[in-house]
């Protein structure tokens, strides 16, 4: 890992500690500025393996609605966000759709499914 020196704003609780992370060994990073252990864990994760839930819409046909809202079932690596958006944007879905239905399974090998966040009837 390259030498890093970053400030992370912790979002675990409303305090919002500004946590400084530095070092070059992911096993032995220096973490300061946190008021609790959760902050330390959050900062570590943000540096080594930041993940996010991706939420967007996908084209929908045969419904009274043009777009179906979707989300990843679990958080995916931050760097996968835009590559996943490309895949999602090329996807077409047909109604009916059941809430929780898997639209894309294991999207780009992230281990996350892309699931529907609402049900839609066929028209």
């Amino acid at each position: 890992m390259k030498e890093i020196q970053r400030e992370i704003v912790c979002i675990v609780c409303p305090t919002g500690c500004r946590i400084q992370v530095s070092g070059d060994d992911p096993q032995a990073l220096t973490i300061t500025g946190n008021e609790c252990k959760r902050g330390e864990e959050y900062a570590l994760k943000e540096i080594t393996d930041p993940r996010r839930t991706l939420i967007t819409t996908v084209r929908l046909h045969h419904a009274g609605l043009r777009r179906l809202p979707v989300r990843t079932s679990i958080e995916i690596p931050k760097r996968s966000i835009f590559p996943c958006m490309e895949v999602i944007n090329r996807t077409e879905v047909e109604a009916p759709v059941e809430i929780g239905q898997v639209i894309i399974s294991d999207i780009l090998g992230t281990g996350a499914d892309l699931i529907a966040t609402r049900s839609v009837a066929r028209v």
Partner: protein
Amino acid sequence: MFDVAVVGAGVIGTLIARELSRYRLEVALLDRSNDVANGSTKANSGIIHAGYDADPGTNKAKFNVLGNPLFDELCDQLDIQFNRIGSLVVAFNEGERATVEQLYGRGISNGVAGLRIIEREELQALEPNLDDAAVCALHAPQAGIVDPWEIAVAAAEIAAENGVEVFLNFPVEDIDRSAGPFRIISQGGEVEARCVINCAGVFADRIHGMVAAPSFEITARKGQYFVLDKSAGDLINHVIFQCPTREGKGVLVTRSVHGNLLVGPDAQVIDDKENLSTNRDRLDYVRRSAGKISKKIPFNEVIRSFSGLRATPSTKDFVIEESRQARGFVDVAGIESPGLTAAPAIARHVRDLISGIMGGLEEKKDFNPLRRKVIRFMDLPDERKNELIRKDPRYGRVVCRCEHITEGEIVDAIHRKVGARTVDGIKKRVRPGMGRCQGGFCGPQVLRILARELGKNPTEIVKNECDSYILTGSTKYGGIEEQVHGQF
């Protein structure tokens, strides 16, 4: 070949076109913009003045006094709302009393009936929210309020129903009469006419200059306004003017015919006739000046501000005459205040001018001066509402929550002659977007309805002019585009 081409589809041009459509004439109505009433007509105080303000002997005075009484019948025929609420020119100190008295005298000279100077006690009873400093006022019972663009829209529709051909997006670039008739040239096409009527507002001098040497100059004077929520509408009962100065009638406060409160305008000479922006310091000035009229104006209820341009003539009076240099070319220029009031009288006079030029006019047997009645759904009694909904369920869908406008009314406005094709076009004709949410709620629905009724993709719908696109495309670029019809 047209007999008459009217350049400019504001309140003047449309009323003239309507007047001419009564006769066996081929009439063309041209406008540079994507809709009628997109210039000064859409951005002024909407006041039908009594006629005491203009100097006696001027066209302004003459046509104001002739025009005012015509409004009841006109608005009835056009099926638009008009309200004679009366006006007050208020003196806020004894020094201003002389001005009020002078206006009174001028009103008498101009032939205005019913004017009275009322004193403090009566004034306070009529207007409890007027500033305490008010000492007296000139009361003119025949002053009224109207939404001026509604006049133009209705007049254009009637004109078109009676055979007038309307050319929008037709900015006149040149007029050539080397071959006899006028060849009116625009980028997109040409129109030929025997006569031309120049109602081009702030650009009238430019149009005139295409056929003759300049005989007048039009200066654009910008005026900025605040529009307040309907909850502020009953703050005052009349049109309230301050005493006029050299600059003009000054900042006024009035309710509008649909119940909002209108505050403004200021007056500012500008060079760029396309510049319609509002600015902070001018709006602040309007606000301060309005404070003289009442300290109770609830500026926290402002829903929007706008600006409009007055076409101020260098001659200081309306220019309504056939050009001596260019026979058959009639200027109707410099129509600043009291232009709106004068408009129906001007239309009749111009008709007479055209009659003179053409050696008489023959009336059409099937001329219909009336606009097909507009359904104002919420004004109907409940049984009528339900009857209408049974016939056309779209009247049961309220699209504009602020003004309670139904889908049926919106669809109707689209399919009339010279109907709405844009979001602002709907706003002008049926009011969604005029309310406190300023189109936030109804906007997406209006857009969808326009697209559906016009057979267009929603991304093709514009706000006002052709370049005022609203949507830039679909989400999920790089996919299969759906067809409009399947989705809407």
